[in-house]
C-alpha cells in the first residue's frame, strides 16, 4: 500500500509538471510491477480494446453509465497502457487501494491486454475491431489478434463485434455475446474498388465471401471453403430511422453523427451497459443518445468557426485506413455542395518516429467523386503526399492548395476556404490544430 501512497504523491507532483496522466503510474509500477493487482476494484470491471473505437466506446459507456446512476471509475485521460491505468486507479483509490464505485471502465491498448488482464481480471471484455493500424509498431491485424488471445480466459465474458472476422475468431472459448450492425442504410455501397484490410478466413486463410460490408472488412461474411461465419448476433443495430439507430428492433439511440463507426461504438456501449452493468435496454439507449463524445484530452468530433466559415472536425487516426474511410464517407454523404476539404498530416505518430505515408494510398479518397469539394486545403509536413494521392483519386489539382507550415496552413484555411470546412486529421496532430484554433478565438 506504500506504493499507492507514493503514487498519490507523484500524482500531485505530476499534475504540477503537467504529466499527470502517466507519471504517477509509471513511478508506482517501477516500485511494484504488479501494482494493478493490488487494487480492490469495483464488482464490475469492463475492458475495452481493439484497433479503433476504444476511446469513443469508453467515453459513451462512461457517460451513459454515470447518467444511469452508476459510480464509474475510468482511465478517462486517454492513456490506455499500464502507467495510464495505474495513474487512474491511484487517483480513484483510497490509501488502502480500495477503488470505490459500481463499475471500472478501462480502455486497454490491444497489444498490452496480455500484461494488463492478469492483474486487472476484467469480467467483461469488449473487442471493437481489428484493422490495419500503425503497422510499424503493431504489425498486422492477425498478429494483434494473437496478442489479444493471449490475454483472454474462459472466466471472461467477451462482448464481440462479430462483423469483424478476426474478432469473431477470438470467441472460441468462454462466454460470448456477439453484436453486429446490420442496418441496410449503413452498408457500404457496391463498387468500392479495393480493400485495405484482409478479408481472409481466420480458419483456412482463403478469401471470405461477403453478403454485404458495413465498412472495410466488417460485415456479413462466410467462407465458401470451410464454412466459417459469425454466429447470430445477440444485439444488433437493425435499422436506421431518420437520425436514429434502431437497436434490437425496439430501442432507439441518436448518434452525434450518423456513420458506421458511431453505429458500432454506440452498439458496443449499449451491449456493455445492458450485459455487464445490468442497465435496462431502454435506459441504455436513452443514455447513449446525443452524447457529446469527449475525453479529457481530445474531442472526437466537434464543430468550429473559422472566420465566416463553419467547420466540422472529423477526428481520424493516422495509419488507420478504416477511420479515414468512415470520415470520408460521412463527408461524401452529408456535405452540402461547395464545401472545403481540409486535411492536416504533420506527425504520423504521437510516440514513434515515422516518415511512412504509404497508408494514404489505401484510403478510399475516390469516394469524394460522389460529392467533390470546391476547395481542398492541405497542411503539415506531408501535405504534398496527400495532394499526390488526391490527384490520383481524380480530384482536380487546380482546387488543391498546400502549406507545409502549420501557422501558414491555418492562414490558408482562413483565406481560401469556401462553404463549410470539413476538416480531417488524426489525433496525432489534433493538438497542433486545436491549439492554433483556440489562439485565434482569443
Amino acid at each position, binding site marked *: 500500500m506504500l506504493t499507492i501512497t507514493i503514487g498519490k504523491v507523484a500524482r500531485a507532483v505530476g499534475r504540477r509538471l503537467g504529466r499527470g496522466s502517466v507519471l504517477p503510474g509509471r513511478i508506482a509500477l517501477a516500485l511494484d510491477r504488479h501494482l494493478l493487482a493490488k487494487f480492490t476494484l469495483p464488482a464490475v470491471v469492463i475492458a475495452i480494446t481493439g484497433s479503433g473505437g476504444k476511446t469513443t466506446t469508453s467515453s459513451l459507456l462512461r457517460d451513459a453509465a454515470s447518467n444511469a446512476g452508476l459510480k464509474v471509475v475510468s482511465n478517462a485521460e486517454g492513456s490506455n497502457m499500464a502507467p495510464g491505468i495505474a495513474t487512474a486507479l491511484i487517483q480513484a483509490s483510497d490509501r488502502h487501494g480500495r477503488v470505490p464505485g459500481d463499475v471500472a471502465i478501462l480502455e486497454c491498448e490491444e497489444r498490452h491486454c496480455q500484461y494488463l488482464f492478469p492483474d486487472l481480471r476484467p469480467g467483461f471484455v469488449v473487442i471493437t475491431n481489428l484493422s490495419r493500424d500503425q*503497422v*510499424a*509498431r503493431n*504489425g*498486422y491485424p*492477425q*498478429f494483434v489478434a494473437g496478442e489479444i488471445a493471449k490475454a483472454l480466459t474462459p472466466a471472461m465474458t467477451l462482448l464481440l463485434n462479430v462483423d469483424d472476422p478476426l474478432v469473431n475468431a477470438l470467441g472460441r472459448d468462454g462466454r460470448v455475446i456477439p453484436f453486429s450492425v446490420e442496418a441496410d442504410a449503413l452498408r457500404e455501397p457496391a463498387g468500392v*474498388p*479495393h*480493400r485495405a484490410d*484482409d*478479408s*481472409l478466413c481466420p480458419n*483456412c*486463410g*482463403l*478469401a471470405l465471401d461477403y453478403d454485404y460490408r458495413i465498412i472495410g472488412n466488417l460485415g456479413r461474411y462466410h467462407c465458401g471453403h470451410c464454412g466459417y461465419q459469425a454466429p447470430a448476433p445477440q444485439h444488433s443495430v437493425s435499422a436506421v430511422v431518420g437520425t436514429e439507430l434502431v437497436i434490437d428492433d425496439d430501442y432507439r439511440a441518436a448518434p452525434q453523427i450518423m456513420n458506421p463507426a458511431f453505429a458500432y461504438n454506440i452498439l458496443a456501449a449499449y451491449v456493455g451497459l445492458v450485459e455487464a452493468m445490468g442497465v435496462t435496454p431502454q435506459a441504455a439507449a436513452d443514455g447513449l443518445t446525443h452524447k457529446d463524445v469527449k475525453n479529457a484530452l481530445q474531442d472526437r468530433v466537434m464543430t468550429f468557426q473559422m472566420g465566416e466559415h463553419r467547420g466540422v472536425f472529423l477526428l481520424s487516426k493516422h495509419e488507420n485506413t478504416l477511420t479515414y474511410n468512415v470520415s470520408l464517407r460521412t463527408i461524401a454523404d452529408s456535405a452540402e455542395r461547395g464545401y472545403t476539404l481540409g486535411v492536416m498530416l504533420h506527425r504520423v*505518430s504521437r*510516440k*514513434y*518516429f*515515422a*516518415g*511512412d*505515408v*504509404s*497508408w494514404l*494510398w*489505401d484510403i478510399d479518397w475516390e469516394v469524394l467523386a460522389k460529392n467533390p469539394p470546391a476547395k481542398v486545403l492541405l497542411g503539415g*509536413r*506531408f501535405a*504534398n*503526399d496527400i*495532394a*499526390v*494521392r488526391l*490527384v*490520383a483519386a481524380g480530384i482536380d*489539382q487546380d482546387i*488543391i492548395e*498546400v502549406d*507545409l507550415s502549420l501557422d501558414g496552413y491555418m492562414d490558408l484555411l482562413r483565406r481560401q476556404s469556401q462553404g463549410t470546412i470539413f476538416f480531417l486529421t488524426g489525433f496525432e496532430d489534433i493538438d497542433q490544430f486545436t491549439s492554433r484554433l483556440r489562439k485565434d478565438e482569443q
Partner: protein
Amino acid sequence: MITIGQGFAGLFNSYGDWGNAQLLARRLADAGLAAEVTASASDLPDLGTCDIVFIGAATLPTFRRQLDRLLTCGDELRQYSSAGGVLFVTGLPAAALGRSLTYHQQSLGCLQLTDQEFQIHDKRRFTDGVWQLFGSDTDVVGVLNSHLTWTDSATPFLKTSLTAQPGHPRTDGCQQGKLFSSQVIGPLLARNPDLLDKVANMVAGQELASDDQPWMDFEKAAHAQADRYLTEMLSLTEKQRANATGGLKSPTP
C-alpha cells in the same frame, strides 16, 4: 486498350499495391492510352489479356498459407513472362519468384523465375527507409521495408540507402527483363516518377511523353520533403532523433 491485372488481390494486397495499378492506369490515360485495371481476388487474372500483372505484398501468415496456391501458377507465369508480359511483384510473393527460398533453415517451394536466393526473416516490423532505383538519380521514399526477405542480386532493382533498422547496404529485389520483384512494399510507382515511366513505357511499348502528369508538381515537392526528412532522421542516433523530434522513438516490437 491496355489491361493491367492485379493477381491474388484479395490475398496479397498491402499498402500501395492498389495505388500502383491505379496510378499506372492514370499515367497511361494521361498519355492518351486507354487502360483498365482488372483484379482477381484469389487467383491470377486471365494472363492472355494482360499487358502487366501486379502481385502485391502479404503478411507472413497469409503468405505461408497461400504459397502453395501461388506455386500452382508457376507454369502460367513462366509462359506469360517468356512471352514478354510485364510482371511486378512486391513483398513476400517476390521471394517466391526466386531460385531458392528458406524460412527457419527450411526450404520452401519457389517458382525459379529469377536468379535470387531469398530468406524470410521472422520479424514483423515494417520500417521506413530510403532506397535508390538503379539507373535513376531519384530516391525512392514513402515506401516500407517489409524486412521479411533478403536478397543479394546480380540484376539489382533497388538499393538500400538508409533504413530505420541497422543493416548493411544491400540490394532489395531485382529486375530481370520485364520482371520486377521488390522486397520493398508500398506505392513504389507513385513514389518514383522514373520507375513509373520505365514501367509505363515497357507496358505501352513506346516512349511516353513525360509532361502533363497533374500530380507531378506535388510529387516532386513531397519527394523532396520526404527525402530531406528521412535522410536527416535516419542519419541520427536514436537519442539524437528523440531530441530532434521532441521524444519520438523508433517503433519497438
